[in-house]
């Protein structure tokens, strides 16, 4: 028995057969069978109830009786050790008399405990038998009719007595053995050590498997098959939940915001709202959040501030006033105003400015073209040379003042300086200089008030912001037009001792190359005045000082002297040895040579290096020479005009003029055209004349009469366009455009030469 059970323990799997046995009640067998779970033994049936009376015996495949034995066997009760155990068991069982199951679990637990603690000398099966028999024979203290086991009771009692007596008498030997280890759970590992015995086999198997896996894809032996799992029926369950409120917020971020922090965010956000009392404004601003575009933070903050409803009227008015002052005094506002004014005027003067700038004239599609205008435009498209008046520079300040001179800015060709002043010797009223811009024909950019009538103006080349103004009282002032402060001139020659005693008739900035440096151009201011001196001015100690370049001595007396061959005293003219110089002009290429025209009517060619002698004298005019100008396109040719109503064309090395042009009135100014070598313009009091040497020597090509009551006094050609600027005695500066002047571009030497001849 014991050996069979021992074998039983070692076997992993075995079939166990149940055979009914004749031994007592099979209750114990059943229960003990249930209690003991040998690893691997298969329990075929579980019979819970205590119904079968027969003892069941379990046999394995080899017909070994592997019936699980109870822990306790009755025949061991004779031994003192077993009695002890039985006593214990009985003692233990009495406590569990009421429960049937409890008694059966108790021996089981006991057996487990026994395996670690004190146990009987016999193996478990002997204990089983012992227990079995004990339970069979003695009375079941648990719900079993006592009638079944009456005799066991008696026997149990006797056993009890014997045991206690025996125990008390002597020392008993107790043998302690350890039961076999009962495996409750055995999961063998899937890892096998390389050093194990069957490692090689396993490795081989693994290799084969991996091969199979690799070849599986292309191998016909292996077919993929899908298996469908059965899904259980779904069961719907409904729950209820609180509603979650969702709020959508969105914003659009543009690259602009990410690039720089929006400056508008640094706005003054005042809790009390500034709002006008207009109800409509409030309504509008309240409606705006709904349809606002969240473009920038500034826009949203504007709208959010507008949507507040508190209004503080007192605070609001103060705030807006402070705001307006702050805004209007800022520099940016001034610039914005300037820009705005120019834009507005550009809209108004769009056609004229386009003509000036030689841009194609765009027809405004929305503008209603009146039939009158159509006729006019048709009439104007004639082919004869004509002047078209574009606009007039005029403002209330300059009204009534006589235009004495004009000058273009060297750097900004849109800037025109106009000097106003009555230059009659009778009244020396205050003068005015206005700097006009083409972009604003209605109001000058700068207004400079001068103490005395302005006779001449000129812009500097080196420092284009400096404007030299010559005045009737002989003083010269240099103003800086870049600064908006027009109160005081930059430099003035008032305090200079050597200033001109009479009106300064002409000023010129001239650049001269210093011989030793070569490249550098030093610019100096030259002036010619009524006292007959030509001076070179330079800045010393914040003031102007001059050196005399030339003294214009009277020539005619000497001339008469030589003609008459009489020794005449020069005592007649001892009062004024010098004759007033009225104009002068430097040679365009050789800045050392200049021409000057005098009151006497002589034209002297002088050199800056020689202050005593004239290089050349040209005599033709017998009246004061009003203007001299070199031809910019042809060297050695110059024009002079004089009050004797003639214009003379000279060549530098020729004493006598090449050509003579007559006009009907004293010619005030004459100018060469900067573009066409054969075109020049002259202005006298009654009209403006445009001469073209190509077409006629006798008559001007275009004659523009002055408006009645006005005298034209000053003339300038516009440098970049074919326009002429004419100043008159009423303070108006008119811009004319030359039209249909058929002049070839290559008109330089080839036209001059035949004329010279």
């Amino acid at each position, binding site marked *: 028995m014991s050996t069979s059970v021992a074998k039983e323990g070692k076997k992993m799997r075995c079939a166990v057969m149940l055979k009914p046995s004749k031994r007592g009640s099979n209750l114990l067998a059943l229960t003990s069978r249930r209690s003991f779970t040998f690893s691997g033994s298969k329990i075929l049936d579980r019979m819970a109830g205590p119904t079968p009376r027969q003892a069941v015996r379990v046999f394995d495949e080899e017909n070994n009786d592997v019936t699980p034995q109870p822990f306790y066997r009755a025949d061991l009760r004779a031994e003192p050790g077993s009695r002890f155990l039985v006593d214990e068991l009985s003692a233990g069982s009495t406590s569990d008399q009421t429960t049937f199951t409890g008694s059966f679990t108790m021996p089981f637990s006991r057996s487990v405990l026994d395996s670690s603690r004190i146990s009987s000398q016999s193996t478990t099966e002997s204990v089983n038998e012992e227990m079995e028999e004990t339970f069979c024979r003695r009375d079941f203290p648990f719900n079993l009719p006592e009638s079944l086991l009456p005799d066991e009771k008696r026997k149990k009692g006797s056993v009890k007595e014997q045991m206690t007596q025996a125990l008390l008498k002597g020392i008993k030997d107790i043998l302690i053995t350890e039961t076999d280890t009962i495996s409750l759970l055995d999961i063998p590992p899937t890892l096998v050590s390389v050093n194990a015995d069957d490692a090689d086999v396993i490795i081989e198997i693994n290799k084969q498997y991996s091969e199979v896996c690799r070849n599986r894809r292309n191998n016909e032996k292996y077919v993929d098959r899908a298996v469908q799992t059965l899904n259980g029926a779904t069961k719907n369950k409904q729950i209820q939940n609180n509603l979650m409120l969702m709020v959508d917020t969105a914003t659009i971020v*543009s690259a602009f915001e990410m690039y720089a922090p929006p400056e508008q965010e640094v706005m003054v956000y005042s809790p009390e709202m500034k709002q006008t009392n*207009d109800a*409509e404004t409030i309504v509008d601003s309240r409606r705006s959040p709904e349809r606002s575009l969240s473009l920038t933070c500034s826009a949203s903050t504007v709208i959010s501030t*507008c949507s507040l409803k508190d209004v503080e009227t007192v605070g609001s008015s103060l705030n807006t006033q402070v705001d307006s002052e702050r805004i209007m005094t800022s520099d940016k506002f001034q610039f914005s*105003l300037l820009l705005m004014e120019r834009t507005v005027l550009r809209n108004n003067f769009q056609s004229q400015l386009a003509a000036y700038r030689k841009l194609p004239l765009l027809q405004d599609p929305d503008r209603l073209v009146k039939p009158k205008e159509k006729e006019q435009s048709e009439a104007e498209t004639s082919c004869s040379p004509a002047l078209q008046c574009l606009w007039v520079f005029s403002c209330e300040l300059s009204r009534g003042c006589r235009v004495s001179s004009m000058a273009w800015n060297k750097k900004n060709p849109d800037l025109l300086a106009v000097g106003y002043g009555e230059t009659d010797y009778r009244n020396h009223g205050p003068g005015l200089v206005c700097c006009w811009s083409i972009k604003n024909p209605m109001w000058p950019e700068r207004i400079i008030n001068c103490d005395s009538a302005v006779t001449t103006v000129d812009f500097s080349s080196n420092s284009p912001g400096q404007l030299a103004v010559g005045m009737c009282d002989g003083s010269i002032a240099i103003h800086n037009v870049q600064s908006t402060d027009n109160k005081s001139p930059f430099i003035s020659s008032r305090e200079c001792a050597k200033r001109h005693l009479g009106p300064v008739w002409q000023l010129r900035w001239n650049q001269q190359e210093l011989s030793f440096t070569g490249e550098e151009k030093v610019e100096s201011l030259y002036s010619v005045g009524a006292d007959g001196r030509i001076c070179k001015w330079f800045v010393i100690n914040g003031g102007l000082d001059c050196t005399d370049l030339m003294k214009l001595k009277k020539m005619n007396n000497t001339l008469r002297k030589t003609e008459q061959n009489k020794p005449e005293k020069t005592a007649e003219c001892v009062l004024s040895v010098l004759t007033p110089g009225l104009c002068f002009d430097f040679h365009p290429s050789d800045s050392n040579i200049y021409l000057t025209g005098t009151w006497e009517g002589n034209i002297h060619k002088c050199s800056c290096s020689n202050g005593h002698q004239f290089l050349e004298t040209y005599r033709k005019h017998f009246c004061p020479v009003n203007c001299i100008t070199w031809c910019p396109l042809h060297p050695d040719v110059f024009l002079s005009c004089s009050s004797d109503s003639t214009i003379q064309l000279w060549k530098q090395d020729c004493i006598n003029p090449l050509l003579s042009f007559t006009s009907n009135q004293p010619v005030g100014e004459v100018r060469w055209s900067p573009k066409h070598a054969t075109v020049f313009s002259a202005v006298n009091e009654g009209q403006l004349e445009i001469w073209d040497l190509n077409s006629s020597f006798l008559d001007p090509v275009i004659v523009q009469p002055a408006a009645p009551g006005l005298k034209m006094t000053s003339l300038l050609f516009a440098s970049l366009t074919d326009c002429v600027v004419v100043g008159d005695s009423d303070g108006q500066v008119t811009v004319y455009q030359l039209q249909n002047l058929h002049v070839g571009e290559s008109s330089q030497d080839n036209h001059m030469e035949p004329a010279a001849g």
Partner: protein
Amino acid sequence: MLTELAHAEETLKRIEGHKGVIGTIIVNSEGLPIRTTLDNSTTSLYARLLCSFTTLARSTVRDVDPQNDLTFVRIRSKKQEILVAPENNYLLIVIQNPSE
């Protein structure tokens, strides 16, 4: 300070007197008109609309090139032209009818 204010006033008056100018509005940074020559409803309408339009225009310009900035806005319509000089803390609006 005072002369600047006077100068600004004078220039503004000059602009208002030019041919075709219907009205001028100066709007501060919050979109409220602080000076106007038009009636209240028109002023508030123009101020509100042009404020947002100008910010849109400015953000367009700066999105294309972040180093650029808006200097002037001209809206030409059939009947008039709206000129806006935008700055950080104000808007100068002039409405002109150029074809008069």
